[in-house]
């Protein structure tokens, strides 16, 4: 069965507000749906999504990533937009492992464990800032947006006097770089790339090792200087907006399920379970791209070689074939196989760090407040791929 036109309309505002009813229809009526306007397939069931993510020889990541749906007949380029510059997320095994191994050391349980105190301190400071702004407090701008920026700056050893610039860079990079900006845009990000270049050449601001040491070592594995820079920029894309979105989505979920928030306030030991269920219930990376390398059959659908495929993690996570009561937020759920961090060789490298950051924020938020409530509607991101909030006014009752 091929999908019906109109069942998934990326420019429909109701899809951005709440994609889950659309996903449910897709899973039932057209689990591998073809969208002729975009010349792409949309995959929505947990089993199919998992298979696509596992079979990297058939479903390649080289199609890249893009925040929008691209054009019919066009490719989807990684947003650095430099040809022949490989980026971790847009490589396949075996070269994928070269990139991954270069930075994996920074994300081991031990390395992340060592960051716990610092992450807690950053979360506490930002929660205090939120309380200090009570009246015009915004969970996005006071907590969810700065915490991942400050944590990544810590990992990269960005000196304190450059934190402001680092935040600006992360905003620049999460907007488009040159790919869509045409002639005007290629100078954007120059200061950031200059900073990265200096760091990769060993001009350290601190004596201690940073993530840059590991990245620079990837040269030995055949990673070019341009690719090293693109990777640094990619870290900002992968490590900041995604985590910010997860925090805002989780808070919105807790407002929808107040008994869950009460349970967490009664027993903070449940916070990690809530983070995991939040990743399933409303994840930030709703979808990513793959491209078929050969004709293949997925579900009941024959795909040609070169098919552009959008895999819907967000839909797979609500698949009633896989999860009981998928639309409920259950702290008791065993969600080991949700796809909030993906699956297979590209499983999110920063998953452990993201969990730590979100847990720290929730724990600090509950410790410092008796209640946190919306002070008006939040504003949703406008992307089918990256789901979160760009503002969430709140009022808090301090403890």
């Amino acid at each position, binding site marked *: 069965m091929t999908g019906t036109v109109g069942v998934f309309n990326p420019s429909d505002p109701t899809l951005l507000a709440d994609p889950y009813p659309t996903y449910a229809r897709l899973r039932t009526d057209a689990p591998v749906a073809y969208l002729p306007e975009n010349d792409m397939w949309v995959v929505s069931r947990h089993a199919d999504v998992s298979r696509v993510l596992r079979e990297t020889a058939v479903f390649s990541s080289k199609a890249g990533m893009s925040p929008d749906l691209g054009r019919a007949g066009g490719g989807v380029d990684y947003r650095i*937009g430099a040809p022949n510059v490989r980026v971790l997320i847009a490589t396949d095994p075996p070269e994928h492992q070269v990139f991954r191994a270069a930075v994996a050391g920074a994300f081991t349980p031990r390395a992340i464990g060592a960051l716990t105190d610092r992450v807690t301190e950053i979360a506490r400071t930002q929660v205090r800032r939120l309380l200090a702004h009570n009246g015009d407090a915004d969970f996005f701008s006071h907590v969810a947006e700065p915490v991942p920026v400050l944590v990544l700056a810590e990992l990269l050893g960005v000196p304190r006097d450059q934190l402001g610039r680092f935040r600006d860079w992360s905003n620049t990079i999460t907007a488009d770089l040159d790919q869509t900006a045409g002639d005007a845009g*290629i100078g*954007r990000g120059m200061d950031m790339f200059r900073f990265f270049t200096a760091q990769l050449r060993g001009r350290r601001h601190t004596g201690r090792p940073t993530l840059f040491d590991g990245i620079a070592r990837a040269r030995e594995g055949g990673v070019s200087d341009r690719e090293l820079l693109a990777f640094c920029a990619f870290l900002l894309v992968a490590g900041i907006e995604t985590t910010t979105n997860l925090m805002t989505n989780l808070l919105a979920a807790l407002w929808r399920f107040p008994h869950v928030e009460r349970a967490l306030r009664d027993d903070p030991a449940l916070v990690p379970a809530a983070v995991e269920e939040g990743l399933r219930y409303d994840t930030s990376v709703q979808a990513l791209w793959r491209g078929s390398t050969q004709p293949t059959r997925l579900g009941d659908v024959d795909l040609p070689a070169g098919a552009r495929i959008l895999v819907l993690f967000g839909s797979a996570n609500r698949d009633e074939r896989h999860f009981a009561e998928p639309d409920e937020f259950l702290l008791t759920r065993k969600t080991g196989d949700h796809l909030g961090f993906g699956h297979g060789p590209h499983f999110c490298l920063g998953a452990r760090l993201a969990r730590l950051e979100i847990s720290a924020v929730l724990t600090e938020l509950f410790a410092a407040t008796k209640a946190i409530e919306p002070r008006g509607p939040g504003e949703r991101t406008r992307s089918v791929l990256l789901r979160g909030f760009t503002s969430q006014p709140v009022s808090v009752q301090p403890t």
Partner: protein
Amino acid sequence: MDTTAQAEVRARVQEIVASLAPAADATPTPDAALVADLGYHSLALLELAFALEDEYGLPPLSEEVAQSIRTVADIEDYVVSTLAAR
């Protein structure tokens, strides 16, 4: 800077722009657009900035100026005026 020296700088800048242009068949005439005609992207522009800074001992090209650059002539003008100002 006299006209001859200026012309020399402009010719040398064009050479550097051509040597670092991602497009294989790049012809760096003054009105050639960096992106559309020469295939420049943000990383190649950074390399160009480094090359010009090394060649002429220029201060780091600011992001603001970098964003205003569209054509080869824009780069020539920037180098010539920066050199003239010292």
